[in-house]
């Protein structure tokens, strides 16, 4: 709790820097617009202005600086503009009963969330299964583990368009499937590594104790290894769900998807509406925060009920 004040201070400083940066970032655009509407701007003509530094432009045309804070298509929107856009596409639409409209970020967030969760479950399942195989089989340990590491050094985005083409050709309908594959690909690795660590965390003496009880290997798995791995599991699940969200958005970006937060970013880029990009980015950040916080809560309650300190 004692880090609340520092966090707020740093956040405030970041927002202040952002706000101050809007002026120089947008001055050229706002001067172009002012000139077009007949105001006198020094120096005249946007080509001449290109060689003049933004600071000089701001000093010479101080009257037009404030226009940069209220542009429709700014190079850098103000925090307030982004907040308004976010509200307009979420809260305001809910109040008008149009939460599921195609223009609402709630709808797009939901599409992204679905793929993220599918990818998360798939990736977690693969990760846990792989970890069990690695812990129990020597061959799997020696052949799978290096490839699991190498798989993460391969930039998945290179594969993203391929996965979408192949699954489209194979007749898998729906755009959710390829996105879920990509997010599972990014998500399985932290789970695998965490679970291998967790399943191996019981000490030799504990395993020996179970042997003296004449426990079968299934019993020692269920009663010792699995419970011992739960804290590791949750830590890696939190990394995994964030990775799954990144995967979904990466899957939506380059592929011409039409719904989802990544698609909003893509469409905002194609139609030249920066506010749509920024609001989608912040919606993605909020989604990531909510998902990680939820898992954190589940972790705390589970560990408490299992008698382990969170």
């Amino acid at each position: 709790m004692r880090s609340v004040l520092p966090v707020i201070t740093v956040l405030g400083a970041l927002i202040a820097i952002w706000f101050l940066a809007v002026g120089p970032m947008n001055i050229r655009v706002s001067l172009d617009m002012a000139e077009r509407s007949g105001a006198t701007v020094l120096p005249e003509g946007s080509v001449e202005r290109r060689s003049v530094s933004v600071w000089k432009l701001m000093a010479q045309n101080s009257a037009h600086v404030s226009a940069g804070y209220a542009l429709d298509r700014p190079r850098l929107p103000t925090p307030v503009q982004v907040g308004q856009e976010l509200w307009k596409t979420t809260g305001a639409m809910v109040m008008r009963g149009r939460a599921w409209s195609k223009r609402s970020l709630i709808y797009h967030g939901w599409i992204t969330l679905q793929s993220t969760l599918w990818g998360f479950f798939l990736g977690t399942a693969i990760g846990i299964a792989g970890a069990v195989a690695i812990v129990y089989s020597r061959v799997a340990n020696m052949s799978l583990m290096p490839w699991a590491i190498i798989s993460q050094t391969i930039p998945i985005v290179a594969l993203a368009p391929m996965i979408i083409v192949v699954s489209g050709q194979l007749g898998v309908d729906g755009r959710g499937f390829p996105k879920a594959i990509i997010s599972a690909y990014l998500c399985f690795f932290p789970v695998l590594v965490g679970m291998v660590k967790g399943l191996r965390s019981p000490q030799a003496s504990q395993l020996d104790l179970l042997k003296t009880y004449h426990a079968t290997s299934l019993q020692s798995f269920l009663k010792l290894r699995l419970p011992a791995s739960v804290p590791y599991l949750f830590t890696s699940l939190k990394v995994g769900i964030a990775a799954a969200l990144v995967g979904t958005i990466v899957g939506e970006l380059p592929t011409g998807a039409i719904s989802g937060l990544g698609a909003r970013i893509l469409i905002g880029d194609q139609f030249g509406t920066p506010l749509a990009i920024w609001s989608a980015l912040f919606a993605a950040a909020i989604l990531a925060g909510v998902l990680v916080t939820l898992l954190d809560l589940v972790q705390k309650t589970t560990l408490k009920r299992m008698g382990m300190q969170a």
Partner: protein
Amino acid sequence: MTALILALVFWIVAWGVNIWLAGSRWSGALAVRIAIPVLFGFTLLVLWEGLVRAFGISPVILPPPSMVVETFANSTQILWEDFRQTVLKGALRGYAIGAVAAVLCAIAIDRSAFLTRGLLPIGNFVAALPIVGIAPILVNWFGFDWQSKAAVVVVMVFFPILVNTVQGLRETDMMQRDLMRTYAASYIQTLVKLRLPAAMPFMFNGLKIATTLALIGAIVAEYFGSPTRGMGFRISTGVGSLSIDLVWAEIAVAALVGSAFYGGVAWVEKRVTFWHPAQRG
């Protein structure tokens, strides 16, 4: 069908060999530790080849590995040009700028305990965000050439390295810092001789995570506009024009570069943090 049967036979034999190798008394040897995963990976390629041939899958959907290898050999010119554009110009420059900036920032932040406590949670949070999404914005700001790619890479690698370095700089304990004080060491001396070396394992952790991010950033940024070269450009146009074998060749390059980049950083880490228990094994 014979292709499939051959592939399946190869799979079973390779599996048997691997089980035998892992159980044999040479299983600890370096050669065997490398041979087993290599054989495993090769088996996957053979199965892929067998499946594609046996079921007559069109090369427009999934080309067999042999065809990819052929394309790779025939188009080294294009691949080299793309490699230079994306990796040497975009990813590596961005990585270098981002890493230096992040380390300098971490050292600056570290001087204030207040800032550290405020920035660590935020940095951790931002490091988990889908930052690739800013690619279109930065392409808009910095133009189509490598500068925008490098900018995306800078932003993507900055936070993981920053967070890890800040954590690493807090790694020294009171006793060690007191010792430096009894030596009358200045802040700079303590930093260079004690705290930076102690932070190295953490810093390299961030640097290793950032290698993949750098390539992802450079490739994704090219999807949003680039000159007519570059790996991301080639992949997105290749998918459109159904020259899928070239796309797979680019993917192979990306995989090789990604692994080599990671391996290179890991190699440097081994040289720099030779004293750390994890490296002495």
